[in-house]
């Protein structure tokens, strides 16, 4: 009702409000796209970090557990 009245009242007003509504929708859509892009970027980085860092992480956790093994035990084959 109110929107119909405002549409009837002025062409300029209608044009301005229409583009404003579209701009609000565009903002929402752009925000969703930005979140998707950032989450994809974060997942890619997390995958690379896991790929390179998992084994060193486990080695660090293992070398610091009790009783502490020596570094030579890590490298020697016996």
């Amino acid at each position: 009702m109110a929107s119909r009245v405002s549409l009837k009242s002025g062409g300029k007003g209608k044009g301005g409000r229409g583009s404003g509504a579209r701009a609000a929708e565009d903002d929402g859509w752009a925000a969703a796209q930005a979140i998707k892009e950032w989450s994809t970027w974060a997942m890619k980085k997390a995958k690379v970090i896991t790929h390179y860092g998992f084994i060193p992480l486990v080695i660090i956790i293992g070398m610091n557990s009790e009783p502490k093994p020596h570094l030579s035990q890590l490298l020697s084959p016996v």
Partner: protein
Amino acid sequence: MAGAVPPEAAKAAATEKAAPEKVDYLNLPCPIPYEEIHREAMMSLKPDLFEGFRFDFTKGLNPQFALSHSVSMGAAEIPSQSSETIKIPTAQYEFGVNFMDPKLMLFGRLLTDGRLNARVKWDLTDNFSFKANGLLTGEPHMSHGMFNFDYKGSDYRAQFQAGSGALFGANYIQSVTPHLSLGGEVFWAGQHRKSGIGYAARFNTDKMVATGQVASTGMVALSYVQKVSEKVSLATDFMYNYMSRDVTASVGYDYLLRQSRLRGKIDSNGCVAAFLEERLNMGLNFILSAELDHKKKDYKFGFGLTVGQ
């Protein structure tokens, strides 16, 4: 009135003593996790058969931390259009780390082509645990991972899964009697736009385990394992896909002897397989694997040595 109650109580006590198997439905045991419902049948009927030579060396630095080096040389199969299987000789080295704590388990295996196979199991509390496993490769879009959140109640287990490719799933299993547990699962695969629902049941006593599983993907799987004695158990498995009309039945045995473990099976696809693990010495195991596929005329033989725990 007061006189009537003690005789009833005495009669109830007598029946309780005479029938010691009175079931306490509020105190049932915790069921097996949903994904391990076929565990006995899988262990007996699906040993990890391999082809070629395999050498595994596990070195424990700690009771909790171990490194493992594994070399394998054999033929890898390439999927081909024709009915002939094409085999390419490959050799690979795999470096692995294991960390086992009562609360945290970390497992990592790195191959020479850069593939990483990682598993994490973290018990946050007594009842809630987090599991993750992943296979990461250098090639884009070829890696996948899966995260599981498990909750263990007094006589039920619930699990939620989230995986790469927008794969989500949840499953629930409940002990209904001390021997029977029933469960169900739902999953949704975003990438293939598929969803499914499945049900499973498991009946086990000390001597036998029978399981059945039905899924809306068209899979029906039944299995039965009978423990004939301390050393011998027999297993049979039946898998039927009602969408693609594919049937596979297999029968196998599992001998757990003092120095060795021998598993063998025969399949309805004309496949006969056997797997022997022999303990030569403390920490030294010799393994032999054979798989003869008479239908496809594909024969695979393997031998290997495992050093370390």
